[in-house]
């Protein structure tokens, strides 16, 4: 799966996990900020995204600070997942 496909899948999973009814994957920009601006997510959503990473990609965040970098946008999430998956191989 290339990054573009992964980002599309992530957008669909974020919408489902966070119950963002009325939001379509195409309305989420690859580099749009996920928190405060952009999707306007909050700290509870951050916990839901950590669960999403573990559940769907078997990836655990090492520390909370890492989350700020990883969850900046769909693009940074995809980069993080691909980097971890490459290490696992």
């Amino acid at each position, binding site marked *: 799966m290339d990054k573009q496909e992964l980002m599309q899948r992530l957008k669909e999973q974020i919408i489902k996990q*966070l*119950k*963002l*009814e*009325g939001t379509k994957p195409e309305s989420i920009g690859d580099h749009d900020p996920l928190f405060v601006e952009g999707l*306007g997510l909050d700290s*509870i959503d951050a*916990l*839901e995204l950590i*669960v999403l990473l*573990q*559940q769907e990609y078997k990836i655990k965040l090492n520390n909370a600070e890492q989350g700020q970098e990883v969850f900046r946008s769909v693009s940074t999430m995809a980069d993080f997942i691909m980097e971890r998956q490459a290490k696992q191989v």
Partner: protein
Amino acid sequence: MYIRSASAVSPQASFNQMLSTPAVYTGDKLNCIEPDYSKYIDPKLIRRMSRIIKMGVAAAMEALKDAELSMPDAIITGTAYGCLADTDAFLSRMVEFNEELLSPTSFIQSTHNTVGAQIALMLHCHHYNNTYVHRGSSFEAAVLDTQSLLEEGEAENILVGAVDEIIENSHAIISRFGIYKESESNKLLNSGTDGTMAGEGASFFVFSKNKEQNSIAKLEDVKTYYKTGRKAENIIHNFLMENNVPVENLDLIILGNNGDSKTDEHYNTVAQHLFGGKRLVGYKNYCGEYPTSSAFALWMATMMIEHGKKINNATSPKKILIYNNYKLKYPSLYLLSAC
């Protein structure tokens, strides 16, 4: 204490529609007719709310609007089962993912006090907030706490209510006890066989210490018991005596019979011996049976007083008694008078 407003999300669309063309349900349960929540709840908040939270918030906001009150001095809620859908989601994930990867939203919102807390968050209300989880007397406990706060001068206006919901899993589990049956809700009270139909609802009220211009009714008294062992006739008789209300002064008696022949005998005895079978009306054909259904009965009584409409030929009731006895363990009584 006085009732300034009453609002309910119930299996009936509205009080007026309940009088003219009540919603009729076939099966073993009555589910709520839900309003357009976008009128009450910010779309950003609504995505995390389960059905019972939305029902509770909508009923509470409507009650506050009708009372023309923006900030209550306290929020008090009663619920027997709490937020079942979130509890179900949380527990199911615990099993599915071996107690890992638990959804924080379901966990946070699975607690019984979520509805009261959510209302407070939306209102930015930092005042007294309590939720009573006392099975069949949860709403009564909430009302008694309301009464105490008002009488002690701790509050002037209190938002009080009750919520309970049916979800698929809980209904399947409770059904194993054989307490529900297939019926038609409009024929339920005369069905004469074992079992009843399940129900659910959210009812909220604004109670005030003093009579206001928009007060609808005075709640003269409320009492609740648990496995008292005393005869219902004696309990009701004493309750009326304590309030100096002879039976003949009651315009209407709302009873909690639910169509289950095992428990309806109890209500039939009360109806005949104490009230001579007159001025009686049931309510569980409208809302089904659930532990906090007496809140629906209080909503119905308040609406009847407010609208002065009639049910079963009881015209414009001014004084109403409600008697419910959930599972014949939790007898409760309410006495209302028109303002």
